[in-house]
């Protein structure tokens, strides 16, 4: 052994603790469940610019978000992709812009960004799509490090930046955002996750790693911030209403948010995944005596704030759905490697129990870091499944970890007859054998075949469009809800459908995943049933109207208009 005195003196004695790591996989498969649609086929040639610098400024590591939206109302899902941009730590040497791709209805897309006027101007992060002005056309809110942008849809294939006019010029570093109607006045309000306070500390360099370069700082070192809740005034403007509420008091490092109703009281709640500090569960308690809205932050007592060892985790992606089929919303959070992801089962009393181990999710995700994700019924058998997009935030992790890699595999879980999630990634197709620096994930049916497809934003790379081939043989009904008294998007509606003697339920949540926004339509899977015997829509307040329909033909999309009926 060769150890000199000098070498020895160079070694310090303090033990540090950095938890890094990985996953091993082995695949081999025939009939794929999802098939990659390559850029040569789709025409989507846009590539995310992560602006990766030798200094490794943290905003570089987070994007991009993505969305499925029908911006031109032609009934076909278009695609929006968020890019980075000029910032106080990066001046692009060549043009960098977002991308809006129009669906050509033949499996290809056309870049219409310039014409649409949605190129962006800041270091973009994510996107939240919602019809905030109830005009029937989707608008977009783009989050960023720097400044957010609200793009109002002009109904002619173009958008207008109305951020200042709408009073939504949110400062700092915003990530995921979600449209929802917290006060049930029929207009979509906006919640915007704020990540860390990066102002004035952007030059903080997180040391030299084992290969002598800077690495991305763990967000633990940065100051937490409060997220923002904006009330829709109904006149094209918004008012920030979080001040004085639990939302402003809860200092976090928000990355993911889903709007749902955890206690079935008809008021939409918010579940926020935070990185390195506890998650937040903001329960909507309705109007308070002083005119201020009441929010309770109950994540700790609900059992969703910390790990079961009482430690905050690195929460990133998040979602909610009635996974167990009990009529109550269950939650999901993806964390960083070795923290396990969480499958929070609703105990129906504003508490949850982490069933990730029971579902096999803990074991499959032990070495992964999860961002974009979604609970949805990918095979239209009527039960909720799960899709996870993963990737380690540290691009140099491969150099000093034996198991954890920067690029990670996608994961697909199918809900079996035992009501448990089963990892079927090994059988899901070649794309599940590949590795990606995945971040945002959006779901949407871009070819209108009733099988929900997936779009993934890769950090510093091309997006990944996956066509769903798993739902063949199962029947479905696609709904486009149109509120007339409630918000136009019907967010918060409860959908009950009965087919072949089985009654199922879905709450129209909004948000979920990471930095991304999804096809606003709901696809109801009915398996082998050849019709839907009964469909019930419980519209959210203010009307709380219940519309009931019988004998609905299947395997097509329909519009359901509040109080008016079903339209083919």
């Amino acid at each position: 052994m060769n150890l000199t005195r000098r070498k020895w003196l160079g070694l310090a004695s303090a033990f540090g603790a950095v938890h890094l790591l990985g996953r091993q996989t082995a695949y081999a498969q025939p009939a794929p469940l999802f098939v990659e649609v390559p850029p040569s086929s789709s025409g989507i040639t846009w590539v995310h610019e992560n602006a990766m610098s030798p200094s490794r400024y943290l905003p570089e590591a987070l994007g991009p978000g993505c969305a499925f939206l029908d911006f031109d109302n032609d009934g076909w899902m278009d695609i929006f992709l968020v890019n980075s941009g000029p910032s106080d730590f990066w001046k692009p040497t060549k043009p960098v812009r977002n991308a809006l791709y129009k669906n050509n209805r033949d499996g290809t897309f056309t870049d219409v960004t310039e014409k649409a006027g949605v190129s962006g101007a800041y270091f973009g992060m994510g996107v939240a799509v919602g019809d905030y002005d109830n005009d029937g056309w989707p608008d977009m809110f783009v989050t960023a490090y720097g400044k957010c942008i609200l793009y109002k849809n002009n109904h002619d294939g173009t958008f207008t930046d109305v951020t200042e006019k709408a009073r939504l010029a949110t400062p700092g570093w915003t990530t995921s955002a979600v449209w929802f109607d917290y006060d049930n006045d029929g207009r979509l309000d906006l919640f915007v996750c704020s990540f860390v306070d990066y102002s004035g500390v952007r030059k903080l360099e997180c040391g030299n790693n084992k290969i002598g370069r800077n690495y991305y700082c763990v967000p633990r070192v940065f100051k937490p911030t409060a997220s923002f809740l904006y009330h829709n005034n109904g006149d094209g403007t918004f008012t920030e209403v979080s001040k004085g509420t639990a939302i402003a008091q809860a200092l976090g490092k928000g990355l993911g948010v889903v709007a749902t109703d955890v206690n079935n009281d008809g008021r939409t709640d918010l579940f926020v995944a935070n990185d390195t500090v506890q998650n937040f569960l903001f329960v909507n308690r309705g109007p308070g005596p002083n005119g201020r809205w009441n929010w309770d932050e109950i994540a700790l007592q609900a059992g969703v704030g910390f790990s079961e060892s009482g430690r905050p985790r690195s929460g990133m992606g998040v979602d909610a759905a009635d996974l167990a089929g009990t009529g109550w919303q269950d939650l999901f959070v993806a964390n960083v490697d070795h923290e396990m992801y969480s499958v929070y089962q609703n105990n129906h009393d504003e508490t949850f129990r982490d069933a990730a181990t029971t579902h096999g999710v803990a074991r499959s995700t032990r070495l992964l870091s999860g961002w974009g994700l979604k609970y949805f019924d990918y095979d239209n058998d009527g039960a909720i499944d799960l899709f996870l997009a993963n990737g380690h935030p540290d691009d140099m992790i491969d150099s000093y970890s034996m198991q954890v890699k920067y690029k990670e595999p996608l994961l697909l879980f199918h809900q079996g007859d035992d009501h448990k999630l089963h990892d079927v990634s090994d059988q899901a197709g070649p794309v599940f054998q590949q590795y990606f620096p995945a971040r945002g994930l959006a779901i949407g049916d871009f070819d209108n075949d009733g099988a929900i497809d997936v779009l993934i934003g890769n950090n510093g790379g091309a997006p990944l469009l996956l066509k769903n081939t798993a739902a063949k043989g199962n029947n479905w009904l696609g709904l486009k809800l149109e509120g007339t008294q409630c918000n136009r998007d019907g967010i918060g509606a409860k959908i009950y459908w009965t087919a072949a003697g089985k009654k199922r339920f879905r709450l129209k949540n909004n948000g979920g995943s990471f930095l991304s926004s999804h096809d606003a339509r709901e696809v109801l899977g009915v398996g082998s049933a050849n019709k839907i015997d009964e469909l019930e829509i419980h519209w959210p307040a203010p009307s709380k109207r219940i519309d009931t329909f019988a004998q609905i033909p299947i395997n097509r999309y329909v519009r359901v208009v509040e109080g008016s009926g079903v339209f083919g």
Partner: protein
Amino acid sequence: MWKPILLLILGLRAVAPAQTPQELIQDAISKQQAGDLAGAVPEYRQFLKIQPEATAIHSNLGAALAGLGRFEEAVAEYRTALRQSPALPGARLNLALAYYKMGRIADAATQLTRVHAEDPKNDQAVLLLGDCYLRMGQDKDVIRVLQPAEKTHPDDLAIAYMLGTAYIHEKQVEHGQVLVDRILRNGDSAEAHLMLGTAKMGVQDFAGARDEFAKAVALNPNLPQVHVLYAKALQLTGDSDQSLKEYKAELAVDPFSFESNLQIGAMLRQEQTYDEAAQYFNRALQTRPGDPAARYQLAVIALDQGKADDARRELESLVKESPQFTEAHVSLSIAYYRLKRPADGKRERDIVQKLTAEAQAKQPGAKAQ
């Protein structure tokens, strides 16, 4: 490193009126010396029915039982012997050895402290006491006990290793370096790789540490703590599967390795195999009675299993002892809420928020650069 002490019978009184007891005891001693411990034990017991005050025979029986791995019974015999004759030569050291074998490291240290006080030149007691302190994480005591021994036994690598490790833990790098140099002079030894790996861990060179520990394991898989340190380095470099194997390997060498029991228990608890996890935590507590980390894990298992009041009791005790133990406050808050004590739950939650804010304020990014 150390070996059990077999007491020989001295001054055995004649057993009147018959020769039978004398023959009995001579036969038992012969069997014990010949290695037939199972044959010796019943004869000792039979003899002690006749002569229960035969202090040395209790001690001999203890040694035979210890040799058979029946440590609980051995401890009882040693204690009887020491009650009858507190200064009985070797009995206390044997009692300490039995405790050590049982993983009752703190009890072993208590007995060894007495042996060391009464006989400071007893090298075996010194070495064993140093080892106990090292296992209990009492590095300052390791240094206190082994520093003089190292001066009189400068070539003893075991002492150099333990003392050097304690120095490194205590950040006394210069002192540690002297001992490392001494070990390195002896060539490619497991001890040297172990200390080098420990030092590399200190500068967060986990991959380097992992490689050193791997070499140490290859050279001497029975070196105390070698598997634990290798397991830690593996964990920190992302190989948790191999890490688990190494923790288990340490338990094969030392069933009462605190770190191994704690870590394996934590992994099992994460897998929600609560009963098995509890066994590991309880064994960890045998090595380090009252250890907050092991007690916390057991409290959380109770909480997970719906025994909120059991959890509350332990957690209240923990936060009283360690007011900065944030995780315990989190779990205690949850326990209170589950027990429908929201005011107490909120109080704990406020403490969590205060502790979190304090920790956050210490982060470099909390201040503008």
